[in-house]
C-alpha cells in the first residue's frame, strides 16, 4: 500500500493537481469568483476544444511522434464541412456535420500517417509540411473567409445547454453546451483504447522501443498509419465543436494553438521522447493552461499579459518535473546503496 502511494507521488499528476488547487485558491482569495458555478462551467466549456486536441496530441507523443498539423487539419475539415452544408442548404441535425468532418479528418490524417508510418519520415517535419499544405489549400483553393452563419443544426448543438450555472452575486449565467459530452466520450474511448486494446498497447510499445515492437510482431507501420488517421478524426471533431460553440466559422483562429496544447500535454508528464505519460496527466496539464489563461481576467491582470503567464507556468512546470525525476532517480540510487 505504502509503495503504491509512493509510486503515485513519483509521477507528475498529483503535483499538477496541487498547482491547480493552489491557483484556484489564490484566484478565490483575490476575486471571490473562482469557486462559483458559472466560473467552473466557463472553465469546463473552455476546456472542450483544447481537451480534444490534447487527446489527439497525447496519442502522437506516446508513440514517440508529434503532430503540429492538427490546428490546420481541424480548421480545414471544419471549414469544408460547414461550407458544404451551407451550400446544400442543409437544415438537419449536427450528426451529418460530425460525420463529414470525421471523414475529411480521416483522409487528412491518412496523409500524415502515410508519410510518417509507411515512409518512416520524421513526424515533426511531415506535420509541419502538411500543416502548411492544409492551410494553403483552405485559403487558396477554398478561398476561405469568415462564415458568420452556420447551419441550423450546428448552431443548436453549440448553444443548447447541458448544464447552466448562474452566479448568485452578479447574476451572470454560463452555459455548458452538449459538446462537453463529446469530450467525455472521446476521453473515455481513448482511455479504453490505450489501456485495453492491443492497438493501444502497441502505441505505447512503439513509443518505448520501435525496433523491439517490430520484432515482437507489431505491425509498426500500420499502427502508426491508423493512429494518425484517428488523430485527424479527433482533431476534426474538435474543429466542429469549436465552430458550433463560436456560432461562426473562422478559417484561421485555431491556427497557432499547437504550442499551448503540446505544452499542456508535456506539463502533464507526457514525455516528448515517447512511451511515457497518462491520459489523466494530459488532461490535467491542459486544464492548468486553460485555468491560467482564464483566470487572468479574474485576477485583474490585463489579458495582454496572458501569454507571459502561460509561458511562465510551462517553464516552471517543466522544470519541476525535471527536478522531480532527477530526485527520484537519486533517492533510488541511495536506496540501492543502503540495501547492498
Amino acid at each position, binding site marked *: 500500500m505504502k509503495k503504491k502511494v509512493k509510486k503515485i507521488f513519483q509521477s507528475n499528476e498529483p503535483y499538477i493537481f496541487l498547482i491547480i488547487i493552489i491557483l484556484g485558491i489564490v484566484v478565490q482569495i483575490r476575486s471571490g469568483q473562482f469557486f462559483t458555478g458559472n466560473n467552473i462551467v466557463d472553465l469546463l466549456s473552455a476546456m472542450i476544444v483544447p481537451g480534444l486536441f490534447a487527446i489527439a496530441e497525447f496519442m502522437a507523443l506516446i508513440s514517440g511522434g508529434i503532430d503540429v498539423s492538427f490546428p490546420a487539419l481541424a480548421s480545414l475539415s471544419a471549414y469544408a464541412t460547414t461550407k458544404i452544408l451551407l451550400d446544400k442548404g442543409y437544415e438537419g441535425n449536427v450528426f451529418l456535420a460530425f460525420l463529414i468532418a470525421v471523414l475529411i479528418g480521416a483522409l487528412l490524417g491518412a496523409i500524415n500517417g502515410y508519410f510518417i508510418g509507411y515512409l518512416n519520415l520524421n513526424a515533426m517535419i511531415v506535420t509541419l509540411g502538411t500543416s502548411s499544405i492544409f492551410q494553403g489549400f483552405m485559403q487558396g483553393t477554398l478561398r476561405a473567409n469568415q462564415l458568420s452563419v452556420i447551419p441550423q443544426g450546428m448552431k443548436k448543438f453549440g448553444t443548447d445547454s447541458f448544464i447552466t450555472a448562474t452566479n448568485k452575486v452578479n447574476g451572470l449565467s454560463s452555459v455548458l453546451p452538449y459538446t462537453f459530452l463529446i469530450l467525455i466520450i472521446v476521453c473515455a474511448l481513448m482511455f479504453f483504447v490505450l*489501456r*485495453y*486494446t*492491443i*492497438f*493501444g*498497447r502497441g502505441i*505505447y*510499445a512503439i*513509443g*518505448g*522501443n520501435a*525496433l*523491439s*515492437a517490430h*520484432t*515482437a*510482431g*507489431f505491425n509498426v507501420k500500420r499502427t502508426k498509419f491508423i493512429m494518425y488517421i484517428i488523430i485527424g478524426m479527433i482533431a476534426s471533431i474538435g474543429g466542429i465543436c469549436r465552430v458550433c460553440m463560436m456560432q461562426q466559422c473562422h478559417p484561421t483562429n485555431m491556427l497557432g494553438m499547437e504550442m499551448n496544447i503540446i505544452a499542456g500535454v508535456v506539463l502533464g508528464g507526457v*514525455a516528448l521522447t*515517447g*512511451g*511515457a505519460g497518462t491520459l489523466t496527466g494530459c488532461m490535467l496539464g491542459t486544464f492548468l493552461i486553460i485555468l491560467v489563461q482564464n483566470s487572468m481576467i479574474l485576477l485583474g491582470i490585463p489579458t495582454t499579459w496572458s501569454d507571459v503567464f502561460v509561458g511562465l507556468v510551462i517553464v516552471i512546470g517543466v522544470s519541476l518535473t525535471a527536478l522531480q525525476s532527477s530526485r527520484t532517480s537519486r533517492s*533510488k*540510487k*541511495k536506496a*540501492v*546503496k543502503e540495501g*547492498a
Partner: protein
Amino acid sequence: MSQSLLKAEHVKISFGNVHALRDVSLEILPGEIHCLAGENGCGKSTIIKIISGVYQRDGGTIEFDGKKLEKISPIDAINMGIQVIYQDFALFPNLTVAENLALNTELASRKKTVSWKNVRKIAEEAVAKINFDVDLDEKVEKLSVAQKQMVAISRALMSNARLIIMDEPTTALTKKEVNSLFKIILKLKEQGIAILFISHKLNEVFEISDRFTIFRNGEMVATGSTKDLDDKKFTYYMTGREFNDQIFVPENMSEKPVFELKNLTLEGAFEAINFSLRRGEILGITGLLDSGRTELALSMFGLKPADSGEILKEGTPIKITNPRDAIEHKIGYVPEDRLSEGLFLTQSIGDNIIISEIDKLKKKNGQFDLKKRDEEIKRWVAELEIKTKNPDNPATTLSGGNQQRIVLAKWLACNLDVLILNGPTVGVDIGSKHDIHMVLQKLAKQGLGVIIISDDLPEVIQNCNRVLVIKNGKIRSEYDTQKVSEQMIIDDMM
C-alpha cells in the same frame, strides 16, 4: 552420431560488395551449450540474424530439427522455437515487467483486446520458470541490466523455446551476475533447451560451453569440443595471430608522486580514499559495479566533484570542479562508455583526435591552423596504429578497439601527466585489447601516470604494478600485482 538440432552448412551472405559470411557452418546438438566466438565483425551477429529470419541467406542450407528451412520470417523462427536475446534485450523500457513478459504471447494469440488479469497470469508463470524474483509492476527502465536480462530470458521461455541464442549476454554484467546467469543457463540445459552463447571472452567459453565454434572474417575456422581447446589455440583461432602477453614491470618510476588523493569523499559513493601515483606507474582500481569505482573516476576528472578531501598534483593541492580544471592540470579520462561519453561518433576520426587540443592549433591571428591539424592527426593515427583508410571518415566506421584508440589519441595529444581509464577494454575484441594494453604499457614507460579502473582481473594483474580493491566506497586492500592471485582480489571485492 546424434541428430543435430540446428545444422547450417556453407551459408553465404553479402551486403553490397561486402561478403559478411563467405562460407560458414554451424551445428548445434539438442540440449547443449554451444559457444560461438569470434572478433567483432567476424559474422557472429550475421549468422544469428539469418537463423532467426531477420536476414535471408544468399546460399547454403539450414536444417532445424531435421527440417530444411527455406525462406523464414522472424515470426516463423519464433514459432519453431528459436529465440534470440539481443544485447539490448529488445524490451520496452516504458512498460511494466508484467506487460513486457506477456506482450508477445498476447500478440501471438491474435486477440484485439488486453486482459490485465491474463497479463499478470502469463507474467507470473514466466518468472516462475527461472525463479526470478521481481516486482511485476515495476517499469523495466528502473531495473538493473541483470534484471532486464532476466526479463528477456523469461520472455524467451514463454514460447516453448528449443534453442535460445544469447548475443554477448555478459558484456554489461558484474561477476556475481554472470555467475547467476550461468546457473540459469545450466538449468535451461537440464530442461533440454539448447543454448547458443555468443562471446569473445575466453574464460566464459571454457566455463560454460560443451562445444564451440569460432568464426573469423566470415569463415568458420574451428569447431569442436571445448575440452580440446586451450587459451593459446582459442586466441589463435580468434585472431589468426599469436600473442605474447607481457606482464607490466614499471621502469623509470619517478621519486615523487605525480598525483595523490587525500581523504577524498563523495557522499553516497565513496569515502576517505587515499592513494598516490608516480610517473611511470600503472595503478589498477577494481571493485564491483556498485562499489563506487566509477564515481571515484568521475570525481578525479571533475565530472562529479568530491565533497571533501584533497587532490594533489606534483605535491601541490589542486581544485578540480569540472573537466576543464582536470585538463588544465594535464589529467585525462577515458570513460567507461566511450561511445556516449568519449566520442563524437558522427564526426570525423581526425576531428575526434584533435578536439581536446584544439586551442593549441591556431595561428598567431587566432585562425584555425589546418596544416597543423592534419599533421597532428597523421601523427596519432600512425602512433596508435588506428586502422582507417581515411581519417576524414566518421568515427562510427571503426571497430570498438579502434574507437577506443581514438579516445586515447585525443588525450595523448594534450601531453598528459595522468591518464585515468575506466574499463578501457570493455566490448573490445582480443586483438585490439592486446594492442591497447601494449600502448598503455609503452606510455607508462615513457613517464605517464596511468590509472586503470576495471573489473577484468586478468587485465588488471597483467597491466598494473599495484592494485587497489574498493568495496562499498572504501579501499579494502592494496596489493602488488606480482604477489596476488585473482581469487584473493575476488574475495576482497565480494
